[in-house]
């Protein structure tokens, strides 16, 4: 059980049986009155952000959540399979739980899987992932004058804009938070 004085950025608590993480926190105590704890909280399952104000008498249940490093194995229809490389335990996430991360999931990629009360519920990718370009229009010298970027398709099926000198078969680094091209990978 947490007290209001335990509230701080990063703390994970239960609200209506759902896990929330405190993403912003402000302590106020106006004019000899009682302390108020203003929190911005993010629902760890659906990402919805809410504002709440608590008082010093409020108490909170800790959310039983943990992150574990796992490897992406394969996708079967809308099920994504991951494995803990130490225990060989396998878990699956559905398409909704994986969300936009599916654009960057390649075989053997190491990711953080979020568990809530023992069940896998979400995924956090590394900020940068290297992916191979599987389809790209060839680069014609002099082209860069008219267009300095072009769309390409990655091994995951994800389409993004890259500088026009990137060729099919090359590897590029993508920022998984923005979905944007970062750099060409020298092999």
């Amino acid at each position, binding site marked *: 059980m947490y007290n209001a004085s335990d509230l701080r950025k990063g703390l994970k608590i239960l609200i209506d049986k759902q896990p929330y993480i405190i993403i912003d926190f402000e302590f106020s105590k106006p*004019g000899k009155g009682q302390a108020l704890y203003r929190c911005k909280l993010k629902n760890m399952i659906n990402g919805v952000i809410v504002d709440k104000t608590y008082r010093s008498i409020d108490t909170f249940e800790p959310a039983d959540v943990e992150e574990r490093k796992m490897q992406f194995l394969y996708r079967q229809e809308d099920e994504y399979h991951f494995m803990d490389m130490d225990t060989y335990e396998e878990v699956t996430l559905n398409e909704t739980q994986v969300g936009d991360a599916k654009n960057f999931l390649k075989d053997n990629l190491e990711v953080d899987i979020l568990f809530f009360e023992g069940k896998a519920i979400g995924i956090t990718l590394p900020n940068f992932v290297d992916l191979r370009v599987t389809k790209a229009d060839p680069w014609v010298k002099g082209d860069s004058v008219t267009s300095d970027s072009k769309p390409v398709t990655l091994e995951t099926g994800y389409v993004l804009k890259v500088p026009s000198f990137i060729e099919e078969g090359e590897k590029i680094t993508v920022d998984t938070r923005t979905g944007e091209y970062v750099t060409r990978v020298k092999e």
Partner: protein
Amino acid sequence: MQKSDDPLSLRSYLLRYLREYLYNSGYIEVETPYLIPAPIPEAHIDSFEVEDRYLHTSPEAYMKLLLSKGYERIFQICKVFRKGEKGRFHMPEFTMIEWYRAGSDYMDLMDECERLLIHIFKRLVDQPYISYRGKKIGLNMPWERISLETLFNRYSELSLWDALKKGIFEKIMITDIEPHLGWRSPVFVYDYPVELGSCAMRSRRDPRIVERFELYMGSIELANGYTECNDPKELKDRFLEEIKKRQAYKKPIYPMPEYLLCSLKAKDRYSGIAMGIDRLIMLIADKRDIEDVIGFNTWE
């Protein structure tokens, strides 16, 4: 240009100019015990217990004892300790200046506070304003004075009294009122309900009110002062009220500060004010967080 962009050097200059002003105004600097047998009962201020003593949450009690012994103008700059208060404007250990003046009331103290701060700002900043969070807080005197009741009528749908009854005084203060306070010039908010000023003297105009004020600059609560209530009987009743509230909130109960009550004389007239030094430095140095103006944060 400020004296220094380094908050610790700024603190040193600030303390020097505070002392300069008060020494020149006939004040003497005093020291009182940090470890005391009983703090002043306050519903929402918690003390650290150390063996059978408490770390003072303000030097108030023993400074009043000095006044009752006949000292007329005293000030103290010291660390004070408040359990559980940690935020952008709060540290469990922080620096306070507190001063008392015999024969004065809260209005006199507002005047003096204004002159003292002008004295400091003149030495520390070159312009006639303080730049804080991208805004310019003008310093031209006189600074605005407005009653708490007027503020509620201006910014809130509820009156001050209804907000208190509904238990949402604090919420309205922080969301609807404080954001407006002290941006054009510093502002004194005065006349607080008696339940929010247990050591302050009851107003001669309205018995629901005590002669208490707060100074705000850039939405920051910078100082708190009042005409002191020196009637031991009335004070004891108010302390019992505070203790009752602590019981209701299931907070630790501290002993009654009898050492203070037994030496007060009801006819004595004086007023006192406490100001947060760290917050004052935040304003002058334009810092967002109190931890940016202290040497070490041991509460991470």
